[in-house]
């Protein structure tokens, strides 16, 4: 608690400090590569038929995903707090890579916790983190995925709290993390809103993003929340089936609960034990969801749907072959939803899909799951 209070105080001060804001803006521009383009996906639009599809290209950021936005902001806070050791959790490895990257940039010691199941399926990112100088510690408990990595990162943090900052990678955990991480990703929606107004002269009909913890989704949703007519659609991992344990769709069977300091929808059994989850994408494979998404769902301001493993894999292939963009398997869930939804919309409708990360890290899984030969085109 003391550490959360310290972080909250420092963040509240930093938010109002013009030097902090200027340094963050400069890093986002010159190091991470912001602003990211809003790209009109002409061939995908034609192929799917219906609404005009735009892609917000967070996959083009340095380290390959939106995660760097949050990591740069928190790294500046670590420096302000005078700490010099950072721990983080990672599922798909994208947050781990972004954390290892900022630690190299700022000269912090870095330990990343990762479930051993995720280390296996995201091997490339494990190597990238190590190359960047981070220590990657495998977590062998529970389902050996993101949830278990968070448990272990929290244990490290509370043990070494006087020197160590927990660089949490999603809109989860205790206050101030969910609001702070959201603020650091708001830039996605701020840019997208400006860009779509410039390109189309109007606001989009819908904004679609995948939701694990929900950081990329809340980042792109946030500045559209007050635009009541803009539909906000979060896409959860439908996994293999609708059975508990075979998916990570919290709004499909999840109940209010507390996990890792957050009160939100949680996949759990009748005794309140947290359920195991499954998704082909490690980044969405988590039994709870950021509390602000729970609120948006309860308010009916956003709706949450699910895409299955199979739909996400097919969507990944379709975007690769129509637009020359290989999305991360997480982002592929959002692409799968636009493929389902756009044909039912008018040609004058405009949809923005957040391509939160690129798929290079997923090549191994894609190779296992997609049979590509000359006939497949």
């Amino acid at each position, binding site marked *: 608690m003391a550490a959360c209070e310290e972080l909250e105080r420092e963040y509240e001060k930093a938010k109002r400090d013009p030097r902090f804001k200027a340094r963050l803006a400069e890093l986002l521009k010159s190091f991470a590569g912001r602003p990211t383009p809003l790209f009109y996906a002409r061939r995908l639009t034609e192929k799917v038929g219906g609404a005009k599809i735009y892609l917000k290209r967070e996959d083009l950021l340095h380290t390959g995903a939106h995660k760097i936005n949050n990591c740069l902001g928190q790294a500046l806070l670590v420096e302000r707090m005078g700490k010099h050791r950072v721990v983080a959790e990672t599922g798909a490895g994208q947050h781990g890579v972004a954390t290892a990257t900022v630690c190299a940039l700022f000269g912090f010691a870095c330990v990343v916790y990762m479930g051993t199941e995720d280390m296996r399926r995201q091997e490339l990112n494990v190597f990238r983190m190590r190359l960047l100088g981070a220590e990657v510690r495998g977590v062998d408990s529970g389902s050996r995925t993101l949830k278990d990595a968070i448990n272990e990162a929290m244990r490290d943090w509370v043990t070494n709290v006087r020197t160590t900052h927990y660089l949490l990678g999603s809109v989860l955990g205790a206050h101030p993390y969910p609001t702070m991480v959201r603020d650091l990703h708001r830039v996605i929606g701020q840019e997208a809103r400006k860009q779509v107004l410039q390109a189309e002269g109007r606001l989009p009909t819908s904004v679609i993003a995948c939701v694990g913890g929900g950081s990329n989704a809340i980042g792109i949703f946030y500045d559209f929340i007050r635009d009541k007519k803009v539909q906000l659609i979060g896409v959860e991992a439908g996994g293999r089936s609708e059975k508990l344990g075979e998916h990570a769709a919290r709004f499909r069977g999840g109940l209010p609960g*507390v996990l890792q300091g957050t009160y939100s929808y949680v996949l759990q059994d009748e005794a309140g034990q947290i359920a195991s989850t499954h998704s082909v994408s490690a980044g969405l494979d988590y039994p709870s969801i950021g509390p602000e998404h729970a609120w948006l769902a309860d308010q009916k301001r956003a709706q949450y749907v699910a895409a299955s493993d199979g739909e996400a894999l097919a969507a990944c292939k379709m975007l690769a072959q129509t637009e020359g963009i290989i999305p991360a398997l997480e982002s592929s869930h959002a692409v799968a939803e636009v493929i389902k939804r756009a044909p039912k919309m008018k040609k004058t409708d405009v949809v923005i899909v957040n391509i939160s990360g690129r798929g290079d890290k997923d090549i191994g899984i894609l190779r296992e799951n997609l049979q590509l030969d000359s006939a497949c085109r």
Partner: protein
Amino acid sequence: MNMSLAFKNHPGLVAYLTCGAPDLGATKSAALAAIGAGAEVLELGVPFSDPVADGPVIQRASERALRNRVSLEDVLKVAAEIRRQSDVGMVVFTYFNPILRMGLDRFASAAADAGVNGALVTDLPVEEAGQYLERMRKSDLATVFLAAPTSTDDRLKRICAVSTGFVYAVSRTGVTGARKDLAEDARKLVERLRRFTKLPIAVGFGISGPEHFRSVGRFADAAVVGSALVQAMEENPGKEAQAVAELIAQVVGRRPSAVSP
């Protein structure tokens, strides 16, 4: 005020057990053995899938218990059985989600019916505890909270204001688990807590031997032995009760009395 959580010995001994590891029968006989060996308060640990505040020993015990699908409801049943044989103080030690799932109302009634004296909810900060406190008071159940060495005075004051039964002082930053050295942190924390409460203060996290026990006795009212007991049970399959009695006797520096298995 719930007097059954008072300590007659000095220092008093609080024994923590993860219920259902290896099974509920062993938990019951180990609990009775702990009482026989001098434990004045039992902390009945509810196994949880994501025990973020616990070290490897209690994590493993929780996994074993969950393989037997041991639930909060089962823990209350064991409590009721122990209550039939002893007037020992009993505190349910749990994460919040199992209580939330059962329902606060049902939990408080069931705990009171089982003869439990109170609860300690590891991941429920005092700031969020309003409804919980109100409901627990209604059933005359004690609410024990954890105080950490990193807590500010302001926070310690708030913790003391809503604690009943005793205050649990965490000896150092980190998770549960036996340690060779007890940090100086513990003494300082207890001294700070004394300014805000007249309740007994129990020190826990890391206590495994007679030296720890004696040194805690110099500044606190009671010591909690947890992971060391759970580990002794893990290492002595089939002889859990005996292992618990022997370890407690050793920690408190008394000869073990005869224990019925």
